[in-house]
């Protein structure tokens, strides 16, 4: 009986051990954010929301002032535009690669994987000049476009996977019923791959949301995003860790909320009856 209990407990103990470093970090993070005047760096003397004062107070930014809300708004714009671009392109490309035969298709698919393996940082200089020439440098939509390009290769594969799951017969039925290829995509496939749309959007949104290097390099100092704002707070002589933790907590909330919202869509996979065709 005891042995049985012990054997049952082993996986949980192992999981807890693996999770412990992360849990400790998160706990520390919360304690920092909500605690004031820390003893030994970890134990708060008093609880309070003073660390969150940036929610109602302006923040010094060079010689000027800014607010957290401006940075949050910019970040939201940046991540949403990027996620939107990724979603539209991946949904169109994923359908084409899943359903249409054309010359060089396999090469194109392999190329996407190779492109994904290229780190975004090494493209920075090239992208800088590209955005400069097309007059999109120093603008959030332009940089969002560049950021989206990095996630599109793997996003296309994700989208293709979702389209592959739809039986050919459903597409054929739609075409018999009078759909053009575009109507099949729009009226039949998009509603059926809602989980895929959610997944690809989250993919594009998240990577843009926590991007630092692109927004730091390609946007001017006058346009603040959460990532550059936090970096700015770190780059001072005296770092207020509680303030930083509180801001980081606010920074991590929107993706979390988005995920909770879209989780239902992610789990809602349609069920097909009968035998699917090739």
């Amino acid at each position, binding site marked *: 009986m005891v042995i049985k209990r012990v054997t049952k407990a082993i996986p949980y103990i192992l999981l807890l051990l693996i999770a412990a470093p992360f849990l400790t970090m998160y706990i520390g993070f919360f304690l920092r954010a909500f605690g004031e005047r820390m003893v030994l760096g970890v134990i708060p003397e008093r609880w309070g929301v003073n660390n969150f004062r940036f929610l109602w107070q302006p923040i010094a930014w060079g010689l000027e002032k800014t607010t957290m809300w401006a940075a949050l708004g910019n970040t939201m714009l940046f991540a949403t535009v990027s996620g939107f671009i990724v979603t539209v392109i991946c949904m169109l490309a994923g359908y084409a690669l899943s359903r249409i035969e054309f010359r060089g298709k396999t090469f194109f698919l392999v190329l996407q994987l190779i492109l994904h393996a290229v780190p975004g940082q090494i493209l920075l200089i090239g992208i800088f000049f590209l955005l400069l020439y097309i007059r999109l440098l120093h603008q959030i939509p332009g940089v969002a476009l560049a950021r989206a390009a990095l996630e599109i290769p793997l996003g296309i594969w994700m989208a293709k996977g979702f389209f592959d799951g739809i039986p050919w017969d*459903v597409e054929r039925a739609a075409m018999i019923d009078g759909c053009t290829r575009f109507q099949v995509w729009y009226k039949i496939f998009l509603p059926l791959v809602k989980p895929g749309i959610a997944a690809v959007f989250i993919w594009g949104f998240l990577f843009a949301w926590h991007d630092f290097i692109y927004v730091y390099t390609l946007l001017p100092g006058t346009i603040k995003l959460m990532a550059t704002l936090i970096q700015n707070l770190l780059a001072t002589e005296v770092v207020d860790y509680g303030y930083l933790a509180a801001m980081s907590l606010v920074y991590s909330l929107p993706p979390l909320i988005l995920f909770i919202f879209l989780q239902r869509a992610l789990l809602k996979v*349609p069920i097909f009856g009968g035998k699917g*065709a090739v």
Partner: protein
Amino acid sequence: MRVFLDRVSKHFGPVKAVDELSLEIGDKEFMALLGPSGCGKTTTLLIVAGFYKPTTGLVLFDDRVVNDVPPRERNIGMVFQSYALYPHMTAFDNIAFPLRLRKMKKQKIKEKVKAVASLLHIEEILHRRPGELSGGQQQRVALARALVKEPSLLLLDEPLSNLDAKLRIMMRAELKRLQKDLGITTIFVTHDQIEAMTMADRVAVLESGRLQQVGSPEELYNMPINLFVAGFIGTPPMNFLVATLEEAEGKLFIKTSHFSLPLPNAIGQKVRSRTTSKAVIIGIRPEDITIGQGEIQGEIYIVEPLGRDTLVTVDVGGETIKVIAPAGFKADPHERIRLAFSLEKIYLFDKETGKSLLI
């Protein structure tokens, strides 16, 4: 509408899925494409539907070549084996979908969907989604979706194979009646010879992408053109025995290692005029053998009562022969038994080519 396939071939790389197929389907005709899996029957259907372009050959609707007409402009209705209903729409929306694409007025759509739903007895389930419907109901919705646009050609791709046995027999009759009432030219693909025989006006038997024979169910049953058709049509299938032809006393005899039978004069004459070869294959249907009398000796292998009659497997010198015996026939394995062939019902095939020697 008439459909005419003129020497249609479809190649997938080196594979000839359909090979020089010529077939005419008359106006209001119910044509079955019958064959084992991989024989090219579904490929043929997809060519007619417009999803595949023939590698060579022409597809004609009435007198119009439609090779380059996309599926949506062919005015066809199609029911798929998997039904292929749109899972995110209710049954009503599924049926209304083709009409909405034609920008029909809302009121008109409602009327038409209601009409076809009552024809197929599915008025009660129109608000449900495909996931909440049984296989039989899904099939009716799929059929309604195909019929609601009043197509000039109806294509059915193994629509009965996902139904249980009882429902399949019911739908068989219902589909046939519906086709007759509506008078829509119909092509029906199946691997089940009973479905093809019971429902179709004419059956086209395909194998390895080639048309073997096309004709009414009776023609295929009574005058199979080759070994393949003879073996494919009829349950239980025809018995085949290797034999040689021998002349004696002005009569033609078929001789196997175990017995020798004189051929009736009518058959003998036909065979004489068609072949000089001695090696043949005899075909005899299980229902054309009488058990308990005759000069062929065998041993009971097993007896399977089927209710209406009894299926007996007999071992004749190492070859198994299936015989339909009357209901109530009883025998034990290894029991010695006599068999008589109805000689006027015998089939003869060339051993080399497999072609019938009687047609």
